[in-house]
């Protein structure tokens, strides 16, 4: 397969040049800046398009096994492909929890047989995500997990977290932490502040996240085990990470597109599609996150794709589950960040390709010869509106419905095979 005449972005080298790419046996055979010359029958015409390495979303919920009415590995992979995501790390809060190699094998096998993109299972840190006993990290690694996390919950005990970090490091597994002090979040459903008080909704203070960010950073520093903080949402949390990194702690972090694009104001109409954990924060927090993106403190952008069925989200704001979907809007959201906040596109691209690949220690994220041919063709000028019918996920819970985006995925290729074409 040849992909000719597009602007080829390679975040591993930081270059963007017009040229041709040759794909063979699922790998990138050659990259030819300026073009390889000669007309080729059957070549994909990429003139005017951007040719990107497939995106790696390091935080998604595929709900499979156990909650297939919300999403499953196949439907999730369809949404991913449409969003230009060719690899995604799926969190273990399924039913049963992915805390043992049987569940891991189920995910790996179903993905191998039917998923359109690469599925990278994340195993639990503790059995049943209960925070009391270590999960079988070693056996799960043999079965195919790429990282460990108790995402959706924080490991409550600092002692347990310390053990989990050290044990995970034994097997070289990256640790991803969701930071939330349960006591402080209490019955809260949105960011705590004057808006939550006006709306009469329970608040989740920023400190609920920050105290655990601080704890995990300290434990990482103490044990020497790297830690990755996921869906960071507060200015203070970001300051903690920046400081820790300055003093040599091996801490990385990601933020979601919704925390980078929206604020708590979006909660004003009691719209449950604006309810997620961590909650949408203030404009000050959002501005800080944008700065963190620019300065590089935020390493990755991940969606925290969290599908929930319509009848679950149709409840009162207090009762509806936390979470929104995001796979399909990841690349368009990056474009929005690029256009509206003058963030360098190559820099943004690194945060969804080489950076997560490095943290998870998986292949991908580059268009260098010899790499996996996971490729996205992106039309940077195409304008479109996200409507419910276009959402390929089983669930439609996104605050971006009705939003106008510029930039659309026109083709997604995984291991040399086209899995999505607009």
């Amino acid at each position, binding site marked *: 397969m040849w992909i000719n005449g597009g602007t080829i972005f390679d975040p591993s080298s930081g270059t963007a040049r017009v040229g041709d790419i040759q794909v063979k046996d699922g790998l990138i055979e050659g990259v030819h800046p300026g073009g390889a010359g000669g007309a080729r029958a059957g070549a994909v015409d990429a003139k005017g398009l951007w040719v990107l390495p497939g995106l790696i979303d390091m935080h998604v919920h595929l709900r499979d096994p156990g909650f297939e009415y919300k999403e499953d590995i196949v439907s999730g992979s369809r949404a991913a492909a449409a969003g230009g995501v060719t690899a995604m790390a799926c969190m273990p809060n399924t039913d049963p929890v992915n805390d043992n190699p049987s569940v891991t094998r189920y995910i790996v096998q179903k993905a191998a047989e039917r998923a359109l993109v690469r599925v990278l299972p994340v195993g639990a840190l503790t059995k049943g995500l209960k925070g009391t006993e270590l999960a079988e990290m070693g056996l799960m690694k043999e079965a195919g997990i790429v990282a460990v996390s108790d995402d959706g919950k924080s490991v409550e005990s600092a002692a347990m977290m310390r053990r989990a970090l050290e044990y995970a490091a034994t097997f070289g597994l990256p640790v991803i932490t969701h930071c939330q002090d349960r006591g402080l979040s209490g019955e809260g459903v949105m960011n705590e502040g004057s808006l939550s*008080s006006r709306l009469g*909704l329970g608040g989740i203070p920023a400190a609920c996240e920050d105290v655990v960010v601080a704890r995990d950073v300290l434990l990482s520093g103490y044990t020497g085990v790297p830690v990755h903080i996921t869906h960071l949402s507060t200015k203070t949390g970001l300051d903690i990470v920046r400081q820790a990194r300055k003093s040599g702690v091996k801490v990385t972090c990601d933020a979601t597109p919704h925390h980078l694009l929206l604020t708590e104001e979006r909660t004003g109409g009691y719209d449950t599609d604006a309810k997620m954990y961590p909650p949408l924060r203030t404009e000050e927090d959002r501005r800080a996150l944008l700065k963190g993106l620019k300065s590089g403190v935020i390493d990755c952008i991940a969606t925290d794709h969290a599908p929930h069925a319509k009848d679950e989200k149709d409840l009162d704001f207090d009762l509806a589950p936390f979470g929104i979907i995001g796979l399909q809007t990841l690349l368009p959201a990056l474009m929005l960040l690029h256009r509206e906040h003058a963030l360098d596109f190559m820099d943004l691209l690194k945060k969804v390709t080489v950076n997560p690949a490095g943290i998870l220690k998986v292949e991908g994220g580059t268009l260098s010869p010899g790499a996996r041919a996971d490729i996205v063709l992106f039309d940077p000028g195409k304008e479109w509106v996200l409507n419910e019918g276009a959402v390929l996920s089983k669930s439609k819970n996104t605050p971006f419905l009705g939003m106008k985006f510029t930039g659309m995925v026109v083709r997604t290729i995984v291991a040399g095979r086209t899995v999505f074409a607009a």
Partner: protein
Amino acid sequence: MKWAHKDLIGIQELTAGEIGHILDMASSFKEISKRDIKKVPTLRGKTVVLLFYEASTRTRLSFEIAAKRLSADTTALSQAGSSFSKGETIMDAASNVMAMAPDCIVIRYPHAGIPRKMAEFLPCSVINAGDGYHEHPTQALLDMYSLKERFGSLKGLNVAIVGDIMHSRVARSNVYGLTRMGARVTLVAPKTLLPPGVETWNARVSTELDPVIPSADAVMMLRVQMERLNERFFPDIREYSTFYGLNRKRVEAMKDGAVIMHPGPMNRGVEITHDAADSARSIILDQVENGVAIRMTLLYLSLGGAANVD
């Protein structure tokens, strides 16, 4: 004044002019309740459905009596329990009620936001009878009416609201309304019961009750919800009532003409002692009486009843 609202969800959405209009109109409705035959045909043929998803005696009874005195037909539906995570959702329930063509739904709900959602969704009028700790607009209006009745005007009045401000829809609606009408509000509570961001509210805040008492024209005591005890917002009732309860000593420190209010139901011996509750300063029962007049006014305005109230 032409009434521009289909619904009443919160005091936040009312102008000072509109609040003044409601308070003025309520006097003529109050007169009806003093008659021998306490009924006018104003809302004959109109159907008012009372949906109460949270325990209430006073508010529900008050709305029901108000509607009946205006000749509307009323049906009350109370649902035991408050969680709809299993079974019918509240919006489904609302659609079903709507299919029976009511003219007005009065809703009390344990979570914030649902009355507003219903108002957006349903063609009939929706009146919020209290949602979570968001708003309780008719309570604030009857409080304002009671104060105006006593003092002639709300302008310049000092009103202290004391107790669990954080979880109080009554406090919120009163802050919006009273300040809009020119009164000064002081919120008194331990820091654990002050809402986040209270410094942005149009109200003074004090963690001490005693210094606030002498200058207050009205002291409004909020009910201590006993379930908050288990959540450790304060150590126990003894300590709470010592610092935040209204007792004889504090009543004696109140200035001449100052009044005591309480939205009910009272916990005697907790936020208010017997002698405070029953003192000559108490206008607690006036509040209840005025509640009927306020709710008659709102039903009348929302349902666009005939102009003649005689």
